[in-house]
């Protein structure tokens, strides 16, 4: 079987790097919208293999980073409610809401647990019928199927002490919002390969045609990334637009139909504020009325959500690709992974954390801001 190592072969990396250099005749700016890709690009130094003038912007590809702080505030409130077990992904526990984070709620006596899957939360609910188990469900369309199967199983197996605080987000509407931003300067997108395994290419097809840009579905290994970049640059050099799939070993045009079917059954599409980006039309999911009994916000009568407060941190500009992380004045000084100001520095997938880990902690004062 072909392995990850086959997609890291140095000789093929060199071939593709040379091919890109020969293909490009003028400057282009591409944006990836996936934290996993951002980390691979920085980890392997792919951005430094590209010819001068080809720039990579790191979009809002980290779901933990874009989860609105009001959602975290609600998770904290639930964590501090007696007889409740609050669960979520480990990254989510370290991101501050408006004042504090879930780990601090644990320090105050809340039962807060880091899990790898919402299905684990369901298991905890079965083991603790005397407790109310809430899963703080965040993530892109990659994670939404797992949340959907957990809640549909809860309903089928009549597990009533399980509920969800849902802040799932949808990638294509956020890409559209970025394209409509007057400050946007990307010429093409590398689309997140694993989101496309679930959703297929239909939504981004419409986006590519509406905005007449190339979008290339791209994987995560160095050769996947370079191949995706090559295809995107080829479209641009030829003045073409549309969707190309550079990750066909995992992504089918139609996506994962069983996953899409369950997402449609369990969730409704809503307008949702993304942290740092503001309200994204059709940018999120909530539980559909048929699952309202499993909605923690209804079960615990939390009332309407508050709007996020303004923050001094520039992670919003990082997420929109307006600045690179090391151009933020706080980067590596008042903002580090130990003492983060923004979610992009907290999460292992955030662009600021990737720059800090792979590029050192110094700000980049010599580079011109755009």
């Amino acid at each position, binding site marked *: *079987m*072909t392995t*990850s190592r*086959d*997609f890291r072969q140095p000789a*093929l990396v*060199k*071939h*593709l790097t*040379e*091919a890109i250099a*020969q293909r490009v005749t003028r400057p282009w700016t591409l944006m990836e919208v*996936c*934290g*996993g890709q951002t980390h691979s690009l920085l980890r392997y130094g792919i951005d430094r293999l590209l010819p001068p003038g080809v720039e990579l912007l790191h979009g809002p590809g*980290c*779901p*933990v980073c874009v989860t609105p702080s009001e959602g975290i505030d609600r998770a904290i409130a639930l964590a501090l409610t007696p007889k409740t077990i609050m669960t979520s*992904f*480990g*990254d*989510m526990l370290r991101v501050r809401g408006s004042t504090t984070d879930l780990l601090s709620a644990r320090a105050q006596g809340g039962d807060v647990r880091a899990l*790898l*899957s*919402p*299905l*684990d939360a369901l298991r905890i609910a079965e083991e603790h019928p005397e407790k109310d188990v809430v899963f703080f469900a*965040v*993530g*892109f369309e*990659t*994670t939404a*199927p*797992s*949340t959907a*199967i957990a809640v549909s*199983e809860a309903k*089928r*197996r009549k597990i009533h002490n399980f509920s969800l605080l849902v802040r799932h987000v949808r990638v294509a509407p956020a890409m559209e919002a970025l394209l409509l931003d007057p400050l946007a300067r990307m010429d093409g997108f590398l689309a997140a390969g*694993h989101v496309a*395994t*679930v959703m297929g290419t239909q939504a981004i097809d419409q986006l590519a045609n509406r905005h007449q840009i190339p979008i290339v579905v791209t994987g995560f290994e160095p*050769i*996947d990334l*370079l*191949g995706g970049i*090559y295809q995107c640059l080829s479209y641009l050099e030829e003045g073409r637009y549309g969707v190309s799939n*550079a*990750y*066909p*070993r*995992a*992504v089918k045009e139609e996506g*994962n139909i*069983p*996953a899409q079917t*369950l997402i449609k059954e369990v969730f409704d599409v809503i307008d949702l504020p993304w942290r740092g980006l503001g309200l994204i039309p059709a940018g999120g999911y909530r539980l559909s009325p048929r699952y309202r009994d499993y909605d923690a916000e209804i079960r615990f009568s939390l009332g309407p959500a508050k709007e996020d407060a303004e923050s001094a941190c520039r992670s919003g500009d990082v997420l929109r690709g307006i600045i690179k992380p090391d151009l933020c004045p706080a980067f590596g000084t008042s903002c580090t992974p130990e003492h983060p100001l923004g979610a992009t520095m907290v*999460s*292992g*997938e955030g662009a600021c954390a990737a720059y800090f880990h792979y590029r050192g902690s110094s700000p980049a004062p010599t580079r011109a801001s755009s």
Partner: protein
Amino acid sequence: MCLAVPGQIQSLVESPDGPSTARVIFGGMTMDVSLAFTPEAKVGDYVIVHAGCAIAMLHEAEALETLEAFRALGEGLARAEPS
């Protein structure tokens, strides 16, 4: 959190009540994973696992085709280079 990883199905886990589950190995570490979204997956197949569920299968033929296409692209350019 969002980092989906490929793993190989080692065995199928009996789950009479609910969707089928597989034991998947990721470079030495094993984890039980729901096959609700890849019901066609068999022992030996590679799947991409995300938050406890297999969300896609990895297809060998397409992997080889991709490598071949990228390799040909490099070779084509190498041939086109002035000697």
